[in-house]
């Protein structure tokens, strides 16, 4: 984020905090990669052991539905 001009990647971003049930070490890695690959997703952090999953994204570029889809496709249940 740039103080000079007020522009910066945190503007217009939303941070979501999910709890995801059923991660394995591998599926957590896979989910992290898939989320990062979505348009507008700028940050992902996952703790596989307790399922806590943080996603920073620009809602204008990716829909919440697409994020949920990443969990769904792998049979993971995510609570916001």
């Amino acid at each position, binding site marked *: *984020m*740039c103080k*000079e*001009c*007020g*522009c*910066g*990647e945190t*503007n*217009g971003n939303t941070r979501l905090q999910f709890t995801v049930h059923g991660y394995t070490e591998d599926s957590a890695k896979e989910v*992290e*990669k898939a989320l*990062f*690959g979505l*348009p*507008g997703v*700028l*940050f992902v952090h996952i703790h596989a052991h307790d399922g806590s999953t943080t996603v920073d994204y620009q809602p204008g570029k990716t829909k919440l539905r697409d994020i949920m889809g990443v969990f769904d496709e792998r049979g993971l249940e995510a609570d916001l």
Partner: protein
Amino acid sequence: MLAGRQGGIKMEVRVMKNVLGENDRVAAENQAMFAAKGVYVLNLMGSPGSGKTTLLEKTMQKLKDELRMAVIEGDLFTTKDAERIDRYGVPVIQINTAGGCHLDAPMVQKVAPQLDLDHLDLLVVENVGNLVCPAEFAVGEADKGVVLSITEGDDKPMKYPLIFKESAVIVLNKIDILPYCNFDRTAAREDITTLHPGANIIEVSCTQGDGLDAWCDWLRQRVAETKAQAQKG
């Protein structure tokens, strides 16, 4: 007191959105103008010192007799980079942002009449050196590109994700100094493709010449595609 301050913060966010919206509108106008003339425009971004101007110098050496090129140089205050371009006899327009951290679409619109668009194939806009703000402001380019150099460290893609997501081409420059740095090239490539599946990464050494042919081939291809698109109308 507190309520007033919160109100102020909200206002700022709205003004910011308007600025971005206005920029996008002008960027679309610029883009349509360049596309109609079949001019391929690359918005070249990257940190100060990553090698943007050096890459342009090498590009001009290789392509200036084959493609009709022009350059717009964004710089805070000086004309140093524009002078480097001028030596190659390629038309160059200087934009000084007077401290502004990025170029924007209105700045490019203002100088565009100085370009001979009817006799131009490739326009490269060297943005102000910065890994954050330029990624947010389209200037009317067909593609964004970013130059990341080995000395900046392999953690930069994940620290500055937007610019790597937005860039159609990622030039990994200064690979000649890989042996002297702890830059993990595999990790960096992996992070870039995680952020941007299918990203086009070109490894180059501007000083030794490695990879410059692949870079020039990519430019040739985009120029040809832009021309073909313009002819279709």
